[in-house]
């Protein structure tokens, strides 16, 4: 029998047992649904993280540090790090563990700047400001950092500088502070002044200040380190971008100059003074992956730890892949379970159609053709299941998409579920192949059947 005739005939016999066919294919449909959603969610998340990374990290820049932790993304390292006497900066990790971070020194920065393939080195100022306030208003905590032109924030009011840094003594204020600091609206806040308080660390190497206090009859416990109030003009109001990588409050953005002054002020006298956990390095011809790779290799040889935006992306993608695989396994289990349904249904179908099989054999139908006929029937069930499952996924997913986007706060233009026709087609073909394989045993039974037994009517 020719293949097109076989396909037509197999489809026809399924149509004559509609209910059974549909019920059997529903089992596969569940698997098809799960897998379609999983694939779509994988696409969505990957695309979202892509955008997240490309809009937060300049692909021609590298993060460069002296400590292994710098290039350690994703899961924390399991190996304990040996204590290093020469490393002075000590921090307490979020989980209470001690972190010893070897910092980038001014000598390192000089070295980096001298490298031919490095165009620019930008320090990363992690500013420890105390509070932000305004005349007659309450004081609020904040995080502050230098404005990075490569990482353009989304604005609620005001404008971004066309090129380069924002002017000194200007800030970009996150939306949340507008009402808190008593402005009427975002527009109203523009051009107004706010103050940020920073504090010098308490450094009293020789104990001079404590001794002086005791001599003057002052309780040394009340000694306060020097602090400073800096006043800024509001240049713009920032809002949370769809692709913002900040999970907490948005930072107050200041110019690089201001950030440096504030950083120096807050670290003066401490081991962190003029040292940085990591710096941003712009690589020459960094749009080319080859330049980035070469730079990373060379920096590695010079005992720096680096991370490219591609690596950041990969580390996020890896987590996404693991999650996707986990959900995918559920879908696969459903598909495997449905295989038994197909085998069962097809066995019943073969037993019910002993006469028909006998007749076809008597008329000279070859074993191979009979086997193919029944395997294709199973294939149709797989096709139907795949089609129902992915159609269901589309019907549920497409209307739900805007709602999910809103709930997860993904921001306009981002969808969690991205359906790709090619993937859905491949999935349906895959399910058909699984179903065809599942149909093999019943089909073999049909092909092996003795026509004489089947045709006896007594």
């Amino acid at each position, binding site marked *: 029998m020719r293949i097109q*005739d076989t396909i037509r005939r197999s489809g026809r016999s399924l149509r004559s047992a509609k209910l059974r066919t549909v019920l059997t294919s529903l089992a596969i449909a569940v698997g098809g649904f799960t897998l379609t959603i999983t694939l779509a969610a994988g696409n969505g998340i990957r695309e979202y993280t892509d955008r997240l990374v490309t809009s937060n990290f300049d692909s021609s820049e590298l993060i460069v540090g002296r400590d292994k932790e710098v290039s350690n993304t994703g899961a924390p390292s399991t190996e304990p790090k040996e204590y290093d006497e020469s490393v002075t900066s000590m921090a307490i990790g979020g989980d209470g563990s001690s972190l010893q971070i070897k910092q980038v020194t001014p000598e390192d920065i000089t070295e980096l700047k001298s490298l031919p393939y490095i165009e620019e080195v930008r320090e990363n100022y992690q500013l420890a400001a105390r509070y932000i306030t305004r005349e007659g208003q309450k004081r609020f905590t904040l995080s502050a950092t230098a404005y990075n032109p490569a990482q353009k924030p989304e604005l609620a009011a005001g404008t971004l500088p066309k090129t380069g840094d924002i002017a000194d003594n200007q800030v970009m204020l996150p939306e949340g502070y507008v009402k808190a600091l008593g402005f009427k609206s975002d527009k109203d806040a523009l051009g107004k002044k706010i103050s940020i308080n920073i504090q010098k660390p308490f450094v009293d190497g020789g104990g001079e200040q404590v001794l002086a206090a005791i001599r003057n009859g002052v309780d040394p416990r009340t000694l306060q380190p020097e602090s400073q109030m800096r006043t800024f003009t509001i240049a713009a109001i920032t809002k949370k971008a769809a692709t913002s990588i900040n999970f907490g409050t948005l930072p107050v953005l200041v110019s690089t100059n201001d950030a440096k002054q504030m950083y120096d002020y807050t670290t003066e006298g401490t081991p962190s003074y003029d040292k940085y956990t990591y710096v941003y390095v712009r690589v020459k011809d960094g749009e080319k992956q080859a330049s980035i790779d070469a730079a990373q290799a060379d920096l590695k040889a010079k005992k720096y730890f680096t991370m490219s935006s591609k690596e950041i992306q990969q580390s996020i993608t890896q987590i996404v892949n693991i999650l996707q695989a986990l959900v995918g396994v559920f879908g696969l289990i459903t598909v495997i379970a449905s295989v038994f349904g197909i085998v069962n249904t097809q066995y019943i179908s073969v037993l019910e159609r002993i*006469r028909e099989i006998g007749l*076809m054999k008597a*008329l*000279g139908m*070859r074993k191979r053709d009979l086997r193919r006929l029944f395997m294709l029937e199973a294939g149709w069930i797989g096709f139907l299941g795949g089609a129902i499952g992915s159609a269901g996924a589309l019907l549920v997913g497409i209307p739900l998409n805007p709602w999910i986007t809103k709930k997860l706060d993904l921001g306009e233009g981002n969808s969690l579920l991205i359906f790709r026709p090619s993937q859905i087609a491949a999935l349906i073909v895959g399910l058909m192949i699984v179903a065809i394989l599942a149909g093999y045993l019943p089909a073999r039974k049909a092909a092996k059947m003795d026509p004489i037994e089947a045709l006896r*009517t*007594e």
Partner: protein
Amino acid sequence: MIEVANITKTYGKKDSAFTALDDISLSIKDGATVAIIGKSGSGKSTLMHIMSGLDTPSDGHVTVDGTVLQQMKPKQIDAFRAEQMSFIFQAFFVEGNQTCYQNVMLPLEIAEVRGRDRKQRVMDALAAVDLSEKANSRARNLSGGQKQRLAIARAIVNRPKLIFADEPTGNLDSATGDKIIDLLFSINKTLGSTLVIVTHDDELAARCKIQVRLKDGKIDSLVTKPTRKTVARAKK
């Protein structure tokens, strides 16, 4: 030309062995009509199955146009049956869920007949059994006689050299049965197909050129009616 040479069919082993056919030999010329007669259980169907290559004999062989069926590969026998033989059964074996057209198309599909004239051949076969207007009706809605006519259309669509009919009127009333038999004989004339009919009906058997009577697996009597030519020659 079909030659059946010393066919024996035994079921079971040693002690419980049962001989369904015992040393059957006969020779059938192309275009002949053959009746295989005998009581139920006498081995009629078994003989027919062996002659068509569906069943294998325990001993002996069947030669069709010089080819020994028992020496053919299964694939070749299948092709042989698909192209040169067809069957009509007591219980019709038409597919109720399919239309008459689809039922008749089956042998052409199995024989991998190509081309546009497939459709015409199906319609011609349906016309030959007077079922043209039922082409698109489901076979389950037909009466018994119509079903058997449909089975005949399916049997002749391939223009086979050999038609086997196993008690084709067994499930029909006598009036309908007679029409079916008339139809089979007219096909034998128009297509020239050899017709092998298994039956208990002596009247029907009498119309056939060769009458093989089986009893307990043995040939009880083998009658070959003289042709008109031989009759004429004998009279001279």
